[in-house]
């Protein structure tokens, strides 16, 4: 029987991808026309500008170039599908992010972007006409050709843009599928974000252009010589890679405009892909037919091979627990015959497994911190109070820096490799690449926390809904285990925040990446989910049979002291 991920890829994801590419293609003519009009801009001759750009837009060559452009962008879109991920990859150091860029299939994407940058620039140069259009120009006096440096400059810039976009895509988490807090319709999602995408494109382009200019000034001779030599062209009279050549305002305008066009085109297609892929998908809770029996919600939630399917499964669970009475009734129902709450058992077990797994990870991390400290301080470990958090955490980070991996707490003596590493870290050049980014550890710990956040929300919503909707007491029977799991995770996360999160939110705000808020979201969700249960059941919760520890913590919530 077909597995859920291959079914999902064939029946859902392919349509979504197709639709996103389709919309990219549909918007491309508009985008290209806008680019053409802006690129023909003459400040002193507005009429020439408008008439010139209109005649260009309606010419046959424009249509042909547009078709070619569409072809290129479709190829780029298809190639970049595999780059998107629901779990952000957090590099520990800059060296790691470099290594990540060189692991397949990323170099392939890089090549695709670079080639597409070159071709798109060539297309744009043809639209620009005038001095940019061809690589070589005929010298009026003789029959020989000479190199057109303006064309060469732009094409090189296109290649450079492709490379820079690759870095933007991976290092700045453009490939991270983040699920929106509001399930708006796709049109409004795109409309809400498109201005931000454009502004980011402008910002990135200005930044990259500022580095391209000095680069070309220093190294521009190399590609020029190569082309002149290989195509046996003459050198041009005005060379661009001189100081005065680079001061050309017209060239600068065209460069920036081209950069914005390329960057926006790519990131717009990425935006569409993200919006389509993160759309909520409704999985059936149970299936009456054998051939679709493994396409239910629980199969999606336990899908190990495709994280996107798993995420969409949990998203759907969280969604239905909040919004759908009909589907909740299915979850609360008993099997016929037998009278077992199979649906609820499967779903809640799957949620609790995820939550407990994270709990385990956080607890281990906390223990590492606990164990790490006293070894350095004194010979025998002493209990550490939460009071001296600041000194504690400072020491922790420095430990991790020295150890590199942070797991050598049992072996305080350093190996030669670590010695070299710690030596290199003190050197300014290497330290740039080898320095740990400050919150990499905690980001790595919580990089997949979105899943647990949905699981927690779902469990809490189900518990709340069970107060009025659960006829057979299916959910309330498992309320103690739910509460125990949530309270344990809550305690460990709070402990983690006190022990290991060194920098406050305000200090890290400038360098805040898209995933850095996940740990705070997890913390808030845990609290609000527990409060939701407390607000629904009130003091009756105290009559549940829980561990004394859990009862004590629950009491804090009932008194609104958390």
């Amino acid at each position, binding site marked *: 029987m077909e597995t859920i991920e291959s079914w999902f890829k064939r029946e859902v994801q392919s349509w979504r991808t197709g639709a996103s590419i389709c919309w990219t293609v549909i918007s491309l003519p508009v985008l290209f026309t806008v680019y053409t009009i802006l690129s023909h801009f003459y400040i002193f001759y507005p009429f020439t500008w408008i008439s010139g750009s209109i005649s260009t837009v309606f010419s046959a060559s424009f249509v042909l170039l547009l078709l070619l452009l569409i072809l290129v962008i479709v190829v780029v879109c298809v190639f970049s599908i595999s780059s998107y991920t629901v779990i952000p990859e957090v590099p520990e150091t800059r060296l790691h992010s470099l290594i990540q860029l060189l692991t397949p299939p990323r170099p392939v994407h890089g090549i695709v972007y670079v080639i597409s940058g070159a071709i798109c620039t060539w297309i744009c140069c043809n639209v620009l006409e005038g001095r940019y259009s061809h690589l070589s120009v005929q010298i009026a006096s003789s029959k020989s050709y000479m190199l057109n440096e303006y064309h060469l400059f732009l094409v090189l810039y296109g290649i450079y843009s492709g490379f820079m976009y690759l870095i933007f895509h991976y290092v700045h988490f453009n490939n991270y599928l983040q699920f*929106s*807090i*509001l*399930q*708006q*319709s796709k049109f*409004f999602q795109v*409309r*809400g974000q498109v201005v931000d995408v454009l502004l980011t494109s402008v910002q990135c382009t200005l930044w990259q252009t500022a580095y391209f200019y000095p680069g070309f000034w220093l190294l521009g001779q190399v590609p020029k010589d190569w082309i002149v030599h290989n195509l046996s062209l003459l050198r041009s009279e005005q060379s661009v890679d001189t100081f005065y050549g680079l001061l050309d305002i017209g060239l600068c305008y065209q460069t920036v405009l081209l950069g914005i066009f390329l960057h926006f085109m790519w990131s717009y297609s990425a935006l569409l892909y993200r919006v389509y892929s993160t759309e909520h998908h409704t999985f059936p809770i149970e299936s009456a037919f054998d051939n679709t029996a493994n396409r239910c919600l629980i199969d999606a939630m336990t899908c190990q091979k495709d994280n996107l399917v798993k995420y969409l499964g949990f998203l759907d669970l969280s969604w239905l627990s*909040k*919004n*759908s*009475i*009909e*589907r909740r009734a299915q979850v609360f129902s008993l099997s016929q015959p037998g009278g077992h709450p199979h649906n609820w058992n499967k779903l809640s077990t799957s949620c609790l497994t995820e939550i407990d797994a994270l709990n385990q990870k956080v607890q281990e991390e906390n223990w590492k911190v606990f164990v790490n400290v006293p070894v350095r301080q004194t010979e025998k470990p002493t209990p550490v109070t939460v009071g001296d958090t600041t000194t504690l955490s400072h020491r922790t980070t420095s430990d991790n820096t020295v150890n590199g991996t942070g797991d050598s707490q049992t072996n305080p003596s350093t190996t030669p490799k670590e010695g070299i590493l710690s030596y290199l870290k003190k050197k300014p050049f290497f330290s740039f690449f080898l320095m740990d980014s400050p919150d990499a550890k905690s980001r790595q710990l919580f990089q997949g926390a979105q899943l647990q956040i949905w699981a927690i929300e779902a469990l809490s919503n189900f518990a709340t809904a069970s107060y009025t909707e659960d006829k057979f007491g299916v959910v309330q029977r498992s309320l103690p285990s739910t509460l125990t799991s949530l309270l344990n995770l809550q305690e460990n996360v709070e402990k983690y925040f006190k022990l290991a999160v060194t920098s*406050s*939110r*305000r200090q890290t*705000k400038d360098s*805040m990446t898209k995933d850095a*808020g*996940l740990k*705070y*979201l997890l*913390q*808030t*969700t845990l*609290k*609000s*989910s527990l*409060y*939701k249960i407390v*607000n629904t059941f009130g003091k009756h919760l105290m009559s549940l049979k829980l561990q004394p520890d859990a009862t004590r913590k629950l009491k804090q919530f009932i008194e*609104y*002291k*958390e």
Partner: protein
Amino acid sequence: MNSSSDNSVFNTFPQPPAENVVTLCEQNGQLMTSQTENMAGSKIQGYPVVVISHDHHKSLSGRENAKSAFLPHDETVWKRAMHAWYEMGLSGVFQEVVNSSGEVPPWTSDLAKKTLTLVRWTSSLHGSLFPHLSMSNEDMICKFSRIHDWKRSPVHAFSWHPHTVKFAYALQDDSINVHMGKSDLVPVLKHKLQKNVADLSWQPQSASVLAVACQSCVLIWHVEPTSLATRPSTSSVQVLQQNSHTPVTCLAWDPNGRILLSSSPVDTAIMAWDVAMETCTPLRRVGGGGVSLLKWSPDGSKVFSATPSHLFRVWETTKWSCEVWTKCTGRIKTACWSPDGSILLFATENEPIIYSLSFSTAQDERKAVIGGSHSAIAAVDISEVTLQGADGKDFKTGGLVHSMVWDQTGERLAVLLQDNGGHIKRQIVLFRTKVDLVLEITPCGFVQGEPTAIPHHISFQPKYDNGAVLSVVSMNLHQLVDYHWQSYHITLYSQSYNSIGLLQIIFFQFSKSVNTYVCYL
């Protein structure tokens, strides 16, 4: 009696109370009153006694820009403009110049005013010019605030905690005091960005998170209930800032506590904040010139948003689509939801009528529906009438509505009336309501404070098991003398009564005296 107000609901009201009595509570369907002198000793247990020391307070008269309190007076307007540039950018400079138009050449202030108008006008997507866009920030907050007479009110914002006995209020110096249960510990929240506080809102499903709508941003405070600090550290504050979304005048939390909506009268977009992630999603629709009022329905299914012009919207919260109602007679001044989210009551700026709008409760889960009825029905006519009070004196009442609150059981509706330029005393009117198949609104009575107290804000305590608690924030005028250059005491005291009945009333009353404080407790 005026013939035009024959339909007024007040003709069927119980007799208004005499001038010198205070309404205590409702008992067996009757509003109980008492002479002012005999009130002591009958309080509801468990509510804090509130005393504010004088140094938290700023002069009531001649309130200027909050910045002027911190800067020496001899700074030139240009220097202040430069500070404004650092704080709020270019629009801050123009704002500063407009605010101190006396100190600059007239053409400069004129130019600045026009540029400010243009900047705001272009930032709002709507094509026609709205008069409110050229107002100064404070005038704008004053116009759209839930507090009556925001500039002169001692309290700039007030908010009950949704689950427990805890409330927060912002004073004129933009500090916020938080009272918890019977505890004597009163955390005072201050932050350099906390200026012109227009709204406060506690996060539901949480104990400690308070959102504050300020001039330039939304601040999120984490007021730890177990902490003993009276001045919580500003490092625990989250600053949510968005360009061209200032001043923020209204906040609304999702009942699950996950999403925070904020609105500004100059921005057509409502910002939906994911507070933990500090990201926001704009909900933008063209038309209206801004968003002046937000109300999330208690069941969480719908959001009401009013604009400064004659239209309002209702959003559903699964797919975030909206329906729009146009052709209102005026700007929506206030609105409230029934507990099940099926009925919306609202009142406009220029008509003494409470309208009701009903929504279908039929659930169709395949597609998101709002199901609002086509047009609103005039539910209550509250036009002005003159009645005879219990003491035989004339009792003028009725007029335009300032704010309206519905209690969580859906059985009582309290309405704060406007004073109509001072010729009617500002009053609170109480109605009984019943939401069955149709909405039924019947008169209950007048809620009267001390003769010299003027109410500024009314609200129901969101969680109260034995009926409902109406809280009234008012300023006591009988010692109001023009001593604004001297320091003085301001005391907020809760005056509430233990008696069995559906409705309990708490007066949070500000009185001020120069020498000693006269305690009423």
